[in-house]
Every structure is written in C-alpha cells, then in structure tokens.
C-alpha cells in the first residue's frame, strides 16, 4: 500500500513543481499575433460625417466595460437601447465588475485578446502610453478632429483637456470623462449641523476647534440615546496606489497641496513632493491625535465601501467627505457643507480636487476595431448635452421630465429605486460630459452650497497630472510603485500609532533611498514644459 502511495506522491510532486514553474509565465503568455496598426473601414458602408444614423447598414461592435455593483446589465439600459436605434451601431458589452476590473483589463492587453473599444475603462496614464506605444490602442487625435465635433469644441473651450491627454509625441490614446461642473470635481466636507446645534457649538474654523468639536461629538451624546456610540469622523478606505483619502481631505489645512495629481506643492515654479516635509509630519501627528482619542473611525483602514456609505446614511456620524448628498438624501437636513479649517500656520486650502478632464482613460479604441471612425462618432454624441442627458436620464416621460429645459428624474421613477441601474454614470468614470445642464440629481442646492464653501479656498491653478513619454512614464511608474507603497503604509502606521514619530528621520531617509529626489526632478521637468 505504501509503495503505491509513494508512486502517487511522486506524480503529485512532479505536477506541483511544474505548476509552480508554469505559474510565473502564465501572466505573460501571449500568442504572437502582432497588432495591426491600422484597420480599414469597409467602403461600402461608409460612415456619415454628421447626423444619425451613423451608418446605413447596422454594424456590431464589442466593448469591454466596467460594471459597478449598483448598475443593472448594460444591454437593459435605456441609453444603449435607444442609441442603437438612432445610430445603427449595435454594441455588445462585456461587463467586468469593479472589483477585479483592473486585473481583467490588464490581462486583455497582456493576452492581446482585445475588444473593439474599452468603455469606462479607468486606463491610467501609464497604461494609455504603454499600450498606445505597443500599438494596441490607436492614436485618436486625427479621428477626434474629423469625427468628434462635440469633443473638439470642449477641448477648444478648455485647452487644459487637450494638454492633459496628449503625449509628448502628440498622440491621444484615451478620451477622458469631462466634468465642467465644479461641484462634481471635489469631495465636500459634510458636518453634522444637527449635532452642532444640539450641543451649542459653532462651526469649527481651525484644526484646534475641529478637534474640540469632535471631542464634544464623542462625549456629549449628541444623538441623545444615552450611549457613547457616536462616530465623530470617518473617511473612505484607501485604495492601494491612490493615497489616503483622509490625508487628501485634511492636507490643505497644513499647507500641503495636491498638484499634478500627486503629493506636490508648487511655489515659485519649484515643484516639491512634500511627503518628507515637516508639514506632513504635523498633519500626521494631528491625525494620530484624532485616532488615539477615538475621534477618527478606527475601521477606516479596513472597512468596505458599503460600510462607509452606510455610516453616511446612518446619521450617527459627525463628519465625513463625499461629492454629493445622494447617499444621505433621507436625512440631508442633518448635514451641511463646511469650509476647510485653518491649520496651525494659517493655511486654509481645498487641496483635493479633480481637473476638468476628471476621469482619465474613460474610453479608448483598439487596433482590432474595424470601424474606428464610426466608434469615434458613436462616443462623441455623449459629449453633447443631448447625449449626456440620454446617458444620465434615459427616456423622456418614462425616466425623466424637463422642467425649464433641465431634465429631472420623475418622482415615480425615483421611487422605484432603479435610478443607478439604468445609467452607466452611477459608479463613476463613464465617458461623457457632466455639465450643469445634466446635474439636477448630483448638484441640488445643498451640494451647491457646500461647494460654495470650498470654492474660495481652491488653489489658483490646478495642474493636471502630466503626460510623460513612454520611457519616462515607465521610470515614474517604477519609482512610484515603491514610493507610494512605502508612503501609504508608513502614513497609515503613523496615524494609527503603530509607528512612533521618533522614526520620522528614518522615514525621511528611506524616502530619499527610494529616490524621491529623482521623482521630484522628473515632475519639475514636466512642470517646466507645461509652464512654457
């Protein structure tokens, strides 16, 4: 019996060793089919330069898209059903859930099994540059000029859009989601005014006052149930590589700006990555104080997005950050927007905020697409108010009604609770235009007021993340992979008290070792080019 067992065991070991060695190559396995750079469109069914339908004979396109937990299937969304009839373009969506989307997207490129286009794709700048240079994404600047009048008009009105998406070689590989509505580019600071009123507190204006208010929230039982169960302050859970939300929300009070899409201050044309700055230490110490005294949500570093949203809607939270009031609509009167608080050195800045081309890499066309012109015309429609209305609101009468020319969801439809199911904008990152005309739901008076509290404290110029050439982008990626990981991990530990501030010198030294200076130099050069 043992003998037989041994034989079996040998087989298993051989197999597992092979699996092990095989594993490392799986991620990159690739058929060698090179991507053809250009794809001719069929002449018989030529694309019309303007008007609908886009083509006379119906054609089919395959899109790869991200589906958020709140969305219904894309094929049931009124926007795509109606638009198919309008345009004669039938789009078949392959849906990948937000969780694990990044992984699936990268595997598509690595295995070269490409769809015709990527919709709502969250391509990073590096990905756009890398896959563009590899010929998997086609350059779009020519197509935009010829077939995208709406997009072109927007880029002329806001030149920063073009500079934010064009590579140094002059190519555009991905189209962003464009947000001309100010209030859709910032997270508001929501504070519980019902609690302030009940405890007879005034709106905090400095970091010290904020601290006192949070202590009062914690100790004085503002919800009146006799228990100390109030949550004074919470924030979103960090996503690896995207910084710590709580830091982004508070940094402005400590003189730390977020320029060029990174932890960067710009003063007198000098770019400074401030992660090792003493001001950052001050901020982390402040947050550490809040954390130690249980003013800051202890679950902040491990909770799920759903937990965070539930805390907003519970009404039992003193302060949090979000773009709109949609999550806590039912108790909206309890909260109000506040201005950034003034820090110990008098800084009062709303450093968090997105550029007008808010969602970089929302749409891209691949090299296997036989109808790039049609695809470009197809997507361009959503950069008009009319197309955006269709995308965000669905069918007139059934889903929305016009009041003074502005679309509002009908009350009957809102009551069904299906609003986020019928539009791909819910869950973020859809390639379209968000202007004041289509913002009746996300920009109600309460949100506008909250935005007005922030506007005076916005930096004069907000520089978008720069586009590097391929080689530099690769270098930045390598540097930032190590640096960001280190910075996020150590900051979290400083805040949670798992790392003592005695180690600050060591922290600074390690940042140097991870070549923060080299990265700063690269950003400086990019800034110099932009400023010219």
């Amino acid at each position, binding site marked *: 019996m043992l003998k037989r067992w041994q034989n079996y065991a040998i087989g298993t070991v051989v197999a*597992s060793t*092979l699996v092990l*060695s095989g*594993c490392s190559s799986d991620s990159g396995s*690739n058929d*060698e089919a090179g991507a053809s750079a250009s794809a001719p469109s069929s002449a018989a069914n030529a694309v019309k330069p303007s008007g609908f339908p886009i083509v006379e004979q119906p054609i089919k396109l395959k899109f790869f898209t991200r589906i958020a937990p709140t969305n219904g299937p894309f094929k049931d969304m009124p926007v795509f059903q109606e638009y198919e009839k309008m345009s004669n373009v039938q789009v078949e969506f392959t849906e990948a859930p937000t969780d694990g989307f990044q992984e699936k997207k*990268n595997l598509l490129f*690595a295995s070269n099994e490409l769809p015709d286009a990527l919709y709502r794709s969250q391509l990073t700048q590096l990905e756009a540059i890398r896959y563009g240079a590899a010929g998997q994404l086609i350059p779009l600047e020519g197509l935009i000029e010829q077939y995208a009048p709406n997009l072109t008009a927007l880029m002329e009105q806001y030149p920063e859009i073009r500079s934010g998406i064009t590579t140094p070689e002059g190519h555009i590989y991905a189209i962003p989601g464009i947000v001309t509505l100010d209030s859709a580019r910032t997270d508001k600071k929501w504070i519980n005014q019902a609690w302030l009123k009940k405890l007879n507190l005034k709106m905090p204006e400095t970091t010290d006052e904020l601290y006192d208010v949070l202590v009062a929230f914690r100790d004085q039982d503002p919800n009146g149930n006799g228990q100390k169960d109030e949550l004074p302050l919470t924030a979103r859970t960090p996503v690896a590589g995207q910084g710590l939300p709580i830091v982004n929300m508070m940094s402005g009070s400590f003189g730390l700006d977020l320029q060029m899409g990174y932890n960067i201050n710009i003063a007198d044309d000098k770019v400074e990555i401030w992660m090792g700055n003493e001001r950052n230490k001050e901020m982390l110490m402040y947050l550490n104080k809040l954390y130690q005294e249980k003013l800051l949500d202890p679950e902040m*570093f491990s909770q799920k997005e759903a937990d965070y949203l539930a805390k907003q809607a519970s009404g039992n939270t003193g302060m949090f950050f979000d773009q709109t009031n949609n999550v806590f609509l039912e108790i909206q009167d309890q909260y109000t927007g506040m201005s950034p608080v003034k820090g110990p050195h008098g800084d009062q800045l709303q450093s968090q905020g997105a550029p007008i081309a808010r969602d970089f890499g929302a749409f891209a066309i691949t090299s296997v697409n036989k109808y790039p012109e049609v695809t470009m015309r197809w997507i361009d429609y959503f950069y008009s108010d009319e197309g955006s209305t269709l995308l965000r609101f669905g069918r007139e009468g059934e889903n929305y009604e016009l009041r003074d020319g502005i679309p509002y969801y009908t009350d009957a439809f809102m009551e069904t609770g299906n609003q986020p199911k019928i539009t791909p904008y819910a869950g973020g990152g859809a390639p379209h235009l968000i202007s004041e005309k289509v913002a009746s739901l996300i920009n109600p008076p309460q949100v506008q007021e909250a935005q007005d509290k922030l506007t005076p404290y916005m930096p004069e110029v907000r520089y978008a993340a720069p586009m590097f050439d391929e080689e530099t982008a690769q270098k930045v990626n390598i540097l930032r*992979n190590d640096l960001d990981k280190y910075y996020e991990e150590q900051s979290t530990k400083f805040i949670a008290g798992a790392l003592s501030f005695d180690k600050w010198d060591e922290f600074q030294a390690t940042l140097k070792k991870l070549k923060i200076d080299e990265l700063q130099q690269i950003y400086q050069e990019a800034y110099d080019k932009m400023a010219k």
Partner: protein
Amino acid sequence: MEISQAETAEEAARGLARRSGGMLGRMAKRFDLYLMLLLPIAWYLLFHYGPLYGLQIAFKDFNPGKGIGGSEWVGFDHFQRFFESYYFERLLWNTLSINLFSLLIAFPVPIILALIVNELRSKSFSKWLQNITFIPHFMSVVVIVGILSVFLSPNTGPVNKLIEAFGGEPIRFMESAGWFKTIFISSNIWQNMGWQSIIYIAALSGVNPQLYEAAKMDGASRLRRIWHVSLPGIVPVIVILLILDIGHFMDVGFEKILLMQNNLNLESSDVISTFVYTTGILNGEYSYTAAIGLFNSLINLTLLLLVNRFARRTAETSLW
C-alpha cells in the same frame, strides 16, 4: 473495415514484438494502454511544459503588442531590480518565515489528531471528532477571512469581549503586524487539520494489529505503544507528506493573505505571491514579476531537492 484494421494492427504489433522484443514490442502489444497515457502526457505538454516558453519574458522587456518572441532581451535587469528593491528582504523573510512557522507548528497537528482518533475507544466519538475537524476544510477562504474579522473585531468580536471581561484592552488583531502570522497559521490549522489527518488515519489502520498485541503483552503503556508502534508505522507517510509540503514551500496561501492584508499589517503580510499579483497583474509589470516568480520557483525546486536527498539519507524514504 474496423475489424480488419484492428487485425492488421495486431499483426503488425506481433511482428514488431517478434523483431524488437524489447520495450517497443511491449508498447505495441499494449498500445491501448499507451493510448490512454497520451491524454495526461498531452495535458502536461500543453499546460505545464508549453507555458515554460513564456518564462523568457523574465529576461525580456515584455511588450504585449510585440508578443513574447518580439520583445527585447534585457538579461538579468529584472532580477537585479528585485534584489536591489527596498522590499526584497521583507518579502523573502515573510514568505520564508510564514512557511517555516507553518511547517514547525501546523505540520505535526494532524499527526497528533490522527493518533488521538486512532486511540479513542468510543467509535462514535471518534467519528464525531473527525467530522467536526473535517468540516471547515470545505469553507471558502473568503468565508474564513470573513469569520475571522467578525470574531476578532475590536468592537463587537467575542474574542475581544472576552479579553475585556478579564479586564484587558481590546486588541486590533486584524490590523496588527504582530498578530498577523499567528492568526494566519492558527486559522490554517483549524481549517485543515481534519482534512490532513485523513491520510495519517488511513496509514495507521494499516499498521499490523499483532504489533500492538505483542507490545501489550510486553507491558508497554499506551504512550509507549504510540511511540514505538504507531509512529514508526506511519513515518514513511509523514516523510512523503513533509516533502510534498516543502514542494509548496514558497507558495503560501495567496488568496487568504491577500484578503487579510491591509496597510497596518503589511509589515508581516507582504509576501512574494501577493507582491507579484499587485505589481504584475494590477500594475502590468509582467516581465518584472515573471522574474520574481521564476526566482520563487527556483528556491522552491532547490528546497525540494535538498529535503528529498536529506530524507533519503536519514529516513530511507524519499520521492525518488
């Protein structure tokens, strides 16, 4: 038609057998068995040897547009970058230590469990014990990690409630680097000991009962019998399973670690496999992480060969 074909094949086989008489002849005679073998061989070639071709991207700057063959060679650049990386030591230490501790602490547990089950007089109780320890094996890792965070939650978890009842301070188990390995390994033991003990229990039932009787006649106590009869009886199985475990030494429970990871315990939960996932798949650095994966596999292979040789010398049992 078919019959005649089969006949000719048989004739041909006989002819072959007569001529060579050696291995080829035997193969021709039993061609049906060898045909069946073709399937697993094809499987190995396709799914295990085939992908080895892709290993070359560890030495290249892989560009998906150019394909594996078309990408440029960069030699050992990726390996060098990994060895010089700030995280190299931490990744290596965590990977090794989690496995080493697992081996030291978790490996003996199913053996002990099997011995206990074997010694139990009450058949129904031993069945019950086996079932209870067996069930967790069928839970998915996601559920297990969910259970862990509920039980160990600092606000509502029963474990911390207990600590508080004894006057202690609640501990943030899931967000502490110091506790990570303990939680990871002990929950692994809890989940897998029943499953892993099955093989030992089977081996124990194969030990000749006469040996026990003889030992009893000689007045050996229960512990003595376990020590001198049961254990020697299953040593070969233990050694084989140990070598098998070493075969997986470097690939720790990847999903479970990834699920348990957060910035606060990264210090001790950052291992090679999760690093490969986050850097390679999520950030698209295929070549760099292929190099890391290859390095990982090489260590694994070396360990396997070493332990196998060691086992052959000392315990006179080995895989080959």
